[in-house]
């Protein structure tokens, strides 16, 4: 068994060639492929990590946003509920107030109507009563009655108390216009003379007199001098009576109303204030 040196050299050379062949056909391509694949995998893993991080970030963001929205929604809902409650309370209160106001108004209206009705009835009744009285007395009144009234008037003049007489005499004397004697019917001349006479005697002076007929007196005689009045007439009585009744009614209805109309009426009928 000999060693063939040519073969050894040839084999060494062959080995070098094989090394070169395998280097270019096997090791390099395979290693390159492995490297590229590893690079690819690393890239993909890196991308995946990156995506994971991004996804986590987005997830967190969404979670946060969702929580914010939930919170906001809850807040809004609570706020709306509170507002609704407040509004409801307010509406209920308003409605109650309105109802109360309406009820009060209606009550007042009812009371006013009642009062008005009462008043109307009262006034009407009063008016009717006095109308009837006036009518009856007017039917009864005659000239002879008038004569009687004149007599009563002269007697009243005579029987006047001193103080009144003095005050009236002063007025009669200083009056610029003549004293006005009003009567329901035309007084006969002798009656007139009697009254003139009575006046002259009462005031111990020449009294200028003017006679006038006033049917609204119904019956009776009045003396008017410078705004002062001495009267004796049926109308005067009736006016007194009317005033008394009005005062009574006024007192009764005072707590409810002021009775304006009545006071007006009172002023109107303030004609025969003085009674001798």
């Amino acid at each position, binding site marked *: 068994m000999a060693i063939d040196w040519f073969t050894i050299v040839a084999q060494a050379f062959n080995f070098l060639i094989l090394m070169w062949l395998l280097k270019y056909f096997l090791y390099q391509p395979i290693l390159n*492929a492995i490297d590229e*694949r590893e690079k690819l995998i690393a890239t993909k893993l890196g991308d995946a990590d990156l995506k994971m991080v991004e996804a986590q970030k987005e997830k967190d963001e969404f979670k946060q946003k969702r929580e914010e929205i939930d919170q906001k929604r809850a807040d809004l809902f609570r706020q709306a509920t509170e507002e609704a409650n407040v509004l409801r309370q307010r509406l209920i209160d308003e409605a109650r107030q309105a109802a109360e106001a309406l009820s009060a108004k209606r009550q007042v209206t009812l009371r006013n109507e009642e009062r008005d009705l009462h008043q109307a009835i009262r006034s009407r009744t009063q008016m009717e009563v006095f109308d009837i009285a006036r009518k009856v007395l007017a039917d009864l009144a005659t000239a002879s009655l008038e004569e009687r009234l004149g007599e009563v008037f002269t007697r009243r003049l005579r029987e006047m108390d001193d103080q009144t007489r003095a005050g009236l005499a002063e007025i009669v004397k200083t009056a610029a216009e003549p004293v006005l004697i009003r009567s329901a019917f035309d007084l006969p001349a002798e009656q007139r003379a009697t009254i003139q006479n009575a006046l002259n005697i009462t005031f111990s002076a020449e009294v200028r007199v003017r006679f006038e007929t006033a049917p609204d007196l119904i019956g009776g005689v009045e003396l008017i001098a410078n705004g002062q009045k001495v009267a004796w007439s049926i109308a005067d009585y009736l006016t007194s009576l009317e005033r008394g009744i009005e005062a009574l009614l006024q007192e009764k209805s005072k707590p409810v109303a002021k009775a304006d109309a009545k006071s007006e009426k009172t002023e109107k009928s303030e004609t025969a204030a003085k009674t001798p």
Partner: protein
Amino acid sequence: MNLSPDEVVYWQYGVINLNATIVFTWALMIVLAVSAKLITRRLSTSLQRSRWQNLLEIIVTSILQQIEDVGLNEPRKYLDFLGTLFLFVAAASLGTVIPGYQPPTGSLSTTAALALSVFAAVPFFGIKAQGFGNYMKSYMAPTFIMLPFNIISEISRTLALAIRLFGNMMSGGMIIGILLSLTPFLFPIVMTVLGLLTGMVQAYIFSILATVYIAAATRVRKPAPQPEAAS
């Protein structure tokens, strides 16, 4: 019966001859190179790859892993040399399943050539890694007295590499040849299987020893450990 494929000479011109060793070596080279070229022609760099590519990748990465395990930090620098050693020896052994095939590693010329390659590669890589001076100093480690012993060790281990591989490969072929003449059919098949195993083990041992020698030579500023010869 030939003891070595060297003895089968197809063509001769003076000192130049074309014996079975060289012819089978060429055949192996062609098969290895062509199959590698075929497989790596359409390499996939994506996650999907062919089975053959997968196989080659496993082989290459396993070799790299082995080199790194022995202690070489940059295995890719040594892959060309050590990987080709392993693949050539392994392929030569695998070829024994083909009838009429004579493994080139069964020739002392081939194993000597491989051992000489390792003998040359060790100082080559050593000087490349540590520089000429440092590498030369490693022969005088730990003291200059060790210089002759280191040199003897260098030569003897190269010889041992060559003889070990030759002996193992030749014996496998011899045993099969002898058994074939004695007990035909069954027993040679069993021995062939055993021969395959032996061949793979020898390929591993040869390349691992080469790696160890290179690793020892490239280890910077360390007393070169004397690797004992293994068989």
